[in-house]
Structures are given as structure tokens and as C-alpha cells.
């Protein structure tokens, strides 16, 4: 029993040594590979319990826990398929003789295998990464291309819209010019209509003033006078001046009084004041 224990201890020790050697090798290999960003953290635990299918626990004499910096655990491993790192095979049972050489052989083989595995993995990883990188680059390039295409499309769309707009503006301008032309053409007729309306309005004013024009028959038959007035927008009549006085005080007074009495008239058309010349005269009755 004691032997068995001591063997076990020896085996464990040997295993620990191998592991350490492996670690040194892997470090060396790692150095040679120069694979950069990886950090491994390995937890070394005393094998108090029987070996379990749990991830490998290396029992080491010494403190309960120890963190070794060199063999780091992969942190944020970008690799797509991470394999259990340094997943040791279950230790050979006691069937295995305590053959150091054999063990060494086994260990060497294993470590070689592992190194190969690792190298393979690393290659794979590198390839994967390269592929990924390539993929990413390609994707980026594709995205860039896509972006450029979209940008181009957008630019061309903008350009199209701008052109559209420009054409629209041009069309609008032409339409406006045409409309203005038409308006001018129609304003030629509406000017005539306006003149007509103003003349008709003037006749109404004439009738209103005539009604208020009162002078006695002592005024000589040939008496005439002209008074300039303006019908303001609100229909108020403003007397501007007596353009041509009659020379007859009574007649001139009657003319001005006729306008004063007429007072406010209907507002002139188009909201525009109208200047009028009023010819006052005595009707011949001979």
C-alpha cells in the first residue's frame, strides 16, 4: 500500500515534471512562432481527488494556488474553434510500469503530438484567422464597394433630383413667363376694361354732381369753368384746383358747392383714386 502510494507520488511527480517540460517547450515553441496576442492562464491544483473527467488538474506541492504567467489561459480567444488546451489524456493507470523511459517516451510522444496538434491548431487557427481576416477584408472591401456604389447611387440620385429640380425650375420659369405674357396680353384687354369701368364711374359722378349743381339764371349763357377733383379710394371727393375759373363769382361758387354737396360718392373701381376734370357749364336755352 505504501509502495503503491509512493509510486503514485512518483508518477504524479513525473507527470508534473513532464508537464513542466511541456510547458517550457511550448513556451519555446511559442517564442519561435511568435504568435502574439495569446495569454494563457493555467490553474494548477493539487490532485487531492481522484482524476476526474474534469479538465486536467495538476497537483503540485506548494501553495494551494499558483498562477503561472507563462502558460496563460486563452482569454478572449478569437479562434473560432478553441480546443481544450493541454487537455492531457487521462493518466495511465497503474498498469503502466514505472518506466521512466517509457514514460518519457510516452511523454515525448505525447508532447510531440501535442506540439503537432498545437502547431496544427495554430496553423489552422492562423489559417482561420487569415481566412477570417481575408473574409473581413473582403467583406470590408465588399462593404466599401457597396458603400461606394450606394454613395454613387445616392450621388447620382441627388444629381438626378437636382437636374430634375433644375428642369422643373426651368419649366416653372418658362411657365411663369408664359403666364406673364398671357397676363400682359390679357392686361391689355383688362386695361381697356379698366378704362371703360373708369369712364362709366366718371359718368356716375357726373350725374351726382349735376344733381347738386344749382345756379341762378343771372349767370350768362356762355359761362364755363373747369374744376380739377380727385375721387379718393374711400369715395371722398377732394377739390384740387379751379383749373379754369369762369370769372363769374356766383357760377364758380355754385360749381364748388355742387362738389361739396355731392360729398362722398361710391368708392372708385379697382381701389384706385380717380382724377377728374369737371367742366361746369350753363345749358343754352335760346
Amino acid at each position, binding site marked *: 500500500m505504501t509502495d503503491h502510494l509512493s509510486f503514485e507520488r512518483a508518477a504524479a511527480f513525473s507527470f508534473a515534471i513532464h508537464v513542466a517540460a511541456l510547458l517550457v517547450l511550448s513556451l519555446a515553441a511559442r517564442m519561435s512562432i511568435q504568435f502574439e496576442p495569446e495569454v494563457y492562464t493555467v490553474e494548477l491544483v493539487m490532485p487531492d481527488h481522484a482524476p476526474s473527467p474534469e479538465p486536467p488538474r495538476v497537483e503540485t506541492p506548494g501553495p494551494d494556488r499558483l498562477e503561472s504567467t507563462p502558460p496563460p489561459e486563452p482569454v478572449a480567444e478569437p479562434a473560432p474553434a478553441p480546443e481544450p488546451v493541454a487537455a492531457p489524456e487521462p493518466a495511465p493507470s497503474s498498469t503502466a510500469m514505472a518506466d521512466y523511459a517509457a514514460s518519457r517516451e510516452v511523454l515525448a510522444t505525447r508532447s510531440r503530438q501535442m506540439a503537432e496538434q498545437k502547431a496544427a491548431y495554430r496553423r489552422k487557427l492562423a489559417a482561420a484567422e487569415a481566412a477570417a481576416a481575408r473574409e473581413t477584408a473582403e467583406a470590408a472591401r465588399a462593404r466599401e464597394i457597396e458603400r461606394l456604389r450606394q454613395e454613387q447611387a445616392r450621388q447620382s440620385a441627388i444629381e438626378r433630383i437636382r437636374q430634375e429640380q433644375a428642369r422643373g425650375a426651368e419649366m416653372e420659369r*418658362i411657365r411663369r413667363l408664359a403666364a406673364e405674357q398671357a397676363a400682359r396680353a390679357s392686361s391689355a384687354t383688362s386695361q381697356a376694361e379698366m378704362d371703360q369701368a373708369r369712364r362709366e364711374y366718371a359718368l356716375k359722378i357726373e350725374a351726382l354732381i349735376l344733381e347738386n349743381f344749382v345756379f341762378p339764371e343771372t349767370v350768362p349763357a356762355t359761362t364755363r369753368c373747369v374744376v380739377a377733383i380727385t375721387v379718393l379710394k374711400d369715395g371722398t371727393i377732394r377739390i384740387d384746383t379751379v383749373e379754369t375759373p369762369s370769372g363769374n363769382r356766383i357760377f364758380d361758387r355754385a360749381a364748388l358747392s355742387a362738389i361739396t354737396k355731392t360729398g362722398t360718392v361710391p368708392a372708385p373701381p379697382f381701389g384706385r383714386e380717380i382724377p377728374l376734370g369737371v367742366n361746369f357749364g350753363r345749358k343754352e336755352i335760346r
Partner: protein
Amino acid sequence: MTRRLGNTLCTLLALGLALSACRPAEAKIYIDVIQSPRKLPVAVLELNGPYGAVISRIVRSDLQLSGLFAPMREEAFMQRPEQEFRRASWAGTGVEFVVRGGVTAGAELEVMVELHDAVEGREIFRKQYRADRALVRPLAHAIANDIFQKATGRDGIFRSKLLYVTHEENFYRLNISDWDGQRPVPLQITGGALMAPRWAPDADTVYYAAERGRAWGVYRTSLSTMREEQVLKAQGTNITGDVLPDGSGLLLSMSRSGSPDLQLLDLTSGGIKRLTWDFGIEVSPAVAPDGASIAFVSDRGGTPQIYTMGLVGYNVKRITYTGQYNTSPTWSPEGDLIAYSGRHEGKNQIFTIWADGTGARMLTSAGNNEEPSFSPDGRFIAFTSDRDGHKAVYVMRVNGEDQRRITDKGVHAFTPRWSPR
């Protein structure tokens, strides 16, 4: 291409705008307000105080009778007589003038009268009148004259007089009245026959032909002194024609040589100058206001017609060709119109004709109408008419309107002559 088109259009547009800016859009329109003369709407408020009502009524009547005013009815007045004149009260009534004032009766009447331009809101005049209570009518006529003058620009005739002859039993008498026939005064001037009274330019001296003691004489009397003197004593029938405008001579028709002829009596020297030498009858001489020509009646053409000629006796021209009997010519104060009496369908009517012989116009139609006489302003004609059964004095407007009798019914009156002022 489009741009070039656009530029062209722009240029055209700018040109159009420039042209439209140059166009006189607000060209002045001339309207003709040609009106016939109309009566002036006037509001004569009753003067406050004693005699106020009487004076206002006379003023209103004068203005009404003048034919130039349309006095507003009192009930339509927009302010009470005692209120100060307010223009706003008369706006929209059409009233052109407002008369208001007051009377104080002391030893004599004191009347304050204001005349307002109701349209412009301006006081035209404010005047004080004084008169004895017995002269309330002349006072009112004086007020009316002033209103008339300010509103028409012409002198009023409301203080003018009418001279006419009345027939009383077996003699004739000269009378005088106001222009409206009021205040008739029978003068102490009578005769077995009394014809053709004529005013001297001084509006005080009157000339007339009277038969007294079977002798025709031409007399004159100053109305202010009532002193009569005979200016002509000659054989035959000598009828007054007209007094020259300067008062220096008297036109007559004298029959001392057989058939009546026109003569000019020099009132200073008493000398007589014969103006017509025709064998026919020449009567009724009337001198034009300018004193240069006369109108008269002659039958040298076979029937009595109106002729004109220079005062010195040549340039004779017949002016009436219508009717078989035209007499009694008289000149308007303006000298452009001659009124006369013409026979039309068996009756005598009043006509007017332009002094050049055109535009004869019959003004009367009822009864016989004779002996026309113009008012001093030429707007009225006084005449004799028997339309109411006997001869009476009537007045009408120069166009024949508004004919009315001014002498009392039953008074046989004729041969009116209107005073020169």
C-alpha cells in the same frame, strides 16, 4: 437654348413693364356738368322779435316772386330761428342759403340780418337795417335786395316801382306801387285823358301826356316833390315816347304836321328835332339803353310794324314781319331784346324779339295783352291785360312764366311802366 429663350423672354418682360410704367394709367377723365339755371333753395328763418314774422314773410315772398329762389317751407327747417346757424343742420337738405336774424322795436325798427352759405358754412354778410315802423315793407324789400345781390350777383328789383294809369269814372289818374303791386299810391296827377307815363333815368321824374281842357300837353312831375310842369304845349296830339338815357331829351310822336311823326324834344333848350319825314304814321318811339338807336311803329309798309333806326334818323330797319298789327315796342335793359304787342288771332299779345329781328316769341295767350315794360333787371315784363274782364296790370317772367295780376281786382289799371331801379 432654353436659357437664350429665357433671356429673350426676360428682356421682353422688362420692356413690357417699362412700357406699362410709362403709360399714363391715371389719365384724367373730363366730365361735363352742363346744367340749366335753377332756383336757389333758400331757408328764410323767421326773424326773432316784433315784426320779425312780417319781415320774413315779405323777404320770402320777394325771393319767391323773383323766380330765382325756392324758399323752403318753414316746417322743413332744420333749426329753430333762435338758434345760431349750424352748417351741419342743413347738410343734405339741398339748401344753399340760410337767412336768420332778429328785430328790436324801439323808436324805429332795428333789424339784424345774417346770410349764411349753407353749403360752405360761411357767413356771407351780417347787416343792420333801421326804418320807421311804417316802412316795414321797404325795409323788408331792402333786405331781400341784399340777399338777392349776394346770391345772384345782380341787383335786386324789390325796391323798384310801377307807374300805371287808372280809370276812375270820368278821368284818369297816375298811380305808383311797389314792384309786387303792394302799397299802391294814387297820385294827384289826373286828366281827361292820361297816356304813356315814362320814367326819367333818375327814377324820380315822370313824364306823361295829358289832355286837360281839350288840349294835349306833355308834363313832368318829380315824385319826391310832386311838382308838375308842362314841358310841351303844341297843337295836335303829342304823345310821350321815351326819355333819353342821359335824361337830356324826350322822344315824342307829334301830329302837328298831319300824320304823326317822331320828334326829339331837347329838355334843356326846349328845341324840337324831327326824326322821321314819312307820309305814314310813326308812333311809340322807344330808345335803346345805349341811347344810339330807337325802335318805333310805322305803317309805311302798309300795316303797323316795328322798326329800328339810329337816333339821328337813318339806318331804318323793319324787324317784325309776323302779324298785321305790331305796336308798343320797348327795349330790355340789356338792349338785346325788344318786347312789343302784336295781334294774334284777333287779340293782342305780348311778344319778344331779338333786336336784330330774329326769334319772335309770343308770351301771352289769354285775353288782350298790351303795353309791355321791362323790369330794371330785364327779368320781368309788366303789361296790361283784360283777361279777367277788365284792364289790369300784370307781371310775368321774361320767358312768359308766372303771369300774375298785381293790381287789385276791380281796379281798372293799364299802361304800366317799370322804374329804372
